[in-house]
């Protein structure tokens, strides 16, 4: 396992280098002058030229890339033209909030999605299954930001049950940073009131972000379990008179989860980039919106920094999925090169 992890991490580094070259090139080819966008429309042409020179944008592309990578190995992702401060600071400031949101939504998605899938398969082609399928389909076809607005209008605006904005209520101090996740940090510091406040703030955005994936999880789980029910080992279990619950959870769920997890892993990773509209609706101080703005403002360093972080997240999730699959299926062995 250890050699496998080292091998995968080394492979991930190569992938990240490839991604950085690709994004570095694309960001510079896309039309639009980053220097002009940074200085604004009132700046004179001479000022823009001078600024472009100062940014090194007049240098050959390989040299610009070399400079960037030289900084990167020292932990310097460059200055954001959009916020005019280090990209690393921009990302670090918002990343924990987005990761907490994505993690919470992933947990909701996995728990409820798989449970609904199992339930649906258990009662396949009967009323509970039909209801679950409609719900799943609704989840899939409705974008997360629509769910976000819907939930916000119903449960926050109309009913007033949940707060609308931010991670904590005004006047509630953030817990001392240990992980950057308020739920965990507040518990680790014994701040139960802060934990509850963070939880009610997190609930709606996490549910909104989870619903499309939850529908996907439910459908995939259902299909794979139904398929597994038809396998000879399931037939045999039934012939032995095992309980339906035991068959579902012990014999069919495990094999059914393998393809489901593979797909859902990518779904979870993509939430990091897709969370920006949910963040905008719930005034969530995350990093997803920053990623979008860097592209719109042609903030070269910001684009590369954000894409590298998202890519790293994808690779980590992919690795986690592979490990989970090896745990679920004993026939799969993780070996290094």
């Amino acid at each position, binding site marked *: 396992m250890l050699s496998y992890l080292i091998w995968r991490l080394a492979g991930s580094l190569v992938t990240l280098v490839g991604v950085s070259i690709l994004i570095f090139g694309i960001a510079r080819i896309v*039309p*639009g*002058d980053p220097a*002009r*966008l*940074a*200085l*604004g*429309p009132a*700046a*004179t*042409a001479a*000022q823009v030229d001078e*600024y472009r020179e*100062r940014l090194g944008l007049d240098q050959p592309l390989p040299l610009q890339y070399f400079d960037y990578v030289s900084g990167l190995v020292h932990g*310097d992702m460059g*200055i954001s033209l*959009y*916020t*005019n*401060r*280090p990209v690393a*600071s*921009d990302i670090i400031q*918002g990343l924990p909030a987005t990761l907490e949101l994505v993690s919470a939504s992933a947990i909701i998605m996995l728990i409820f999605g798989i449970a609904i899938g199992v339930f649906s398969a258990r*009662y396949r082609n009967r009323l509970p299954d039909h209801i679950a399928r409609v719900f799943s389909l609704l989840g899939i076809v409705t974008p997360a930001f629509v769910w976000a*607005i819907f939930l*916000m*209008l119903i449960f*926050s*605006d109309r009913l007033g*049950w*949940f*707060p*609308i904005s931010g991670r904590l*209520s*005004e006047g*509630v101090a953030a817990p001392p940073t240990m992980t950057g996740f308020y739920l965990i940090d507040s518990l680790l510091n014994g701040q139960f*009131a802060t934990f*509850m*406040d963070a*939880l*009610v703030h997190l*609930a709606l955005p996490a549910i909104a972000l989870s619903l499309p994936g939850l529908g996907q999880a439910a459908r995939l789980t259902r299909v794979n379990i139904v398929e597994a029910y038809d396998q000879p080992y399931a037939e045999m279990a*039934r012939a032995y*008179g*095992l*309980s*339906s619950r*035991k068959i579902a959870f012990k014999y069919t769920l495990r094999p059914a989860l393998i393809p489901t997890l593979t797909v859902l892993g990518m779904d979870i990773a993509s939430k990091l980039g897709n969370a920006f*509209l949910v963040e905008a*609706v719930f*005034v969530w*101080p995350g*990093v997803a*919106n*920053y990623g979008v*703005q860097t592209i*719109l*403002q042609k903030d070269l360093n910001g684009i590369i920094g954000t894409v590298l972080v998202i890519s790293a997240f994808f690779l980590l999730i992919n690795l986690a999925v592979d490990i989970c699959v090896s745990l679920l299926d004993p026939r799969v062995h993780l070996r290094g090169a």
Partner: protein
Amino acid sequence: MKIEPAEKSVLNGKVSGGSVDAARSRRRRFVRLAQSAVIALIAFGASNTAFIDPLLAQTTIRLNENAPGDTDPARSTRAIGSILFYNIYDTLLLPGEGGQGAQPHLAESYTIDGDAYTFKLRQGVKFVSGNELTAEDVVFSLERLIAIGAGPAPLFKGWVKSAEAVDKYTVRITTTAPYAPFLAATFRLGIVEKAVVLANLGKGDFGEMKDYGQAYLVMNSAGTGAYKIVSHAPQTQTVLEKNPDYFLPIPADAPDRVVLSYGVEQATQVALMRRGELDIMSQWASPETKRTTLGIEGVSILGEAGLTALQIKLNTTRAPLDDVHCRRALALGLDYETLASLANISDDAKGARVTNGPLLNGMLGYDANIPVYKRDMDAAKAELAQCKYKAGDHEMEIVWLAEVPLEERFALLMQQNWGELGFNTKINRVPVSLYYQSVANKDTSPHVSQIFPSALSPDPDSYLSSVYGTDVRGQPYAAEWLSDEKVDELLAKGRETIDPDKRAPIYSELAARLRELQPSIWAYEAVTTYPKSAKVSVPLLEEPGRNLRVAGMNMMFRMMKAAPAAK
């Protein structure tokens, strides 16, 4: 394999076993537990204001704007940057009420001797660090602004010959030539504390000045302002609180705290206003969203005029718009009233008012006696008859900026109006980044495009020279590619003439010349609108004649009044 006793029929799901009751009981317990958790969560959510009491003693106002919150005074020209600027920094002078002239602020007096401007500073003004403001800080701030070259730098770069600290409280700035807009330009010169900046230099390209403290000032304040930064996340939120050591008295009813949030979705802003958690909505919300807020008790619309106008830019180098008669035909064929009505929120809350030319209402040289533009199809046809092109000879491209959805409606109206004259047009949606690139070349600059150029200062030179001077052709505000000797001459003359009484006729003449050339269609003067709650009042915008006519300046929180929280 161990065989479990049969409990259920696998295929039909029917229950038939002795441990059924236990299973049911477990299930009920689980459901009850889950119900309790949800009820507790909801109850807590509904009453989670229980421990925010410490802040209720303060008056807080909450605003929304577009990200990012710029706090460096050398860069702050965007809307939110300007608001932050005028609250955490101060300038030597401020415009007089109504935006006319200049009044002392950090400088208690000033004298003009030829090209030399001498400012006498107030004594005892403290930075947020507690150190006293001196002439060295003013000189440093000006040098820093010019070196960085962003934001308001065009107002000074090339015009400042020298800046020196004559003594601890006296600054002399000499311009390279007579430069009438200089006093108004100082409204954009925020004074930073030299010692703090020098102590916080980061990696950069300015020689011994490294980054000139840019990385530090993006996150921290080094000013004398009425408010200081409590927390700042440029993409999401800035919290400010009153500076108790401010050099001017701050009225007790000015807000103690200000929370500025960035980039909040419009539906959320409406919901927050309804709950009393947002006091001033973003100016960038659509007219429809703003109209929605009028249904909320106590909400009214603030209007801020005198900052910008919708200019429909006509590329004077591309056929058929290289013929002035065709340009005039377009101007006369446009339905101004309908166009302006698209920006209105209600009959009482106008987002636009039809104008009469290139100068904004109240600007030096503006002549209120000139009638506003209105559609005149007969005159348009007469102009078209004199044009060397036939209306349908060339397809014209009408561009609207993807970031400003309202412009699409304007583009459709233009297409319809000008179609009645026989013009053949196509509409293109273009992001700002591409637009800036396309206008840099006269052959790719669109036939027709729309932009709201904003003046860096209330001086007419700041507003007109970045659009109509030959030397600025191809810059984002100058998509017209106008080159006219008379215009250049009048712009130069207006800049060199120091006496306001002599300057006014120059700008009147310039406006007349531009109306004659018609490089743009001055569609309407924009009134920036902000829905606001009854809890806040903004006297600078609510009381007639007090508008300071500089972006962000009317949002000086020390001039606002905030009622205590009603919770």
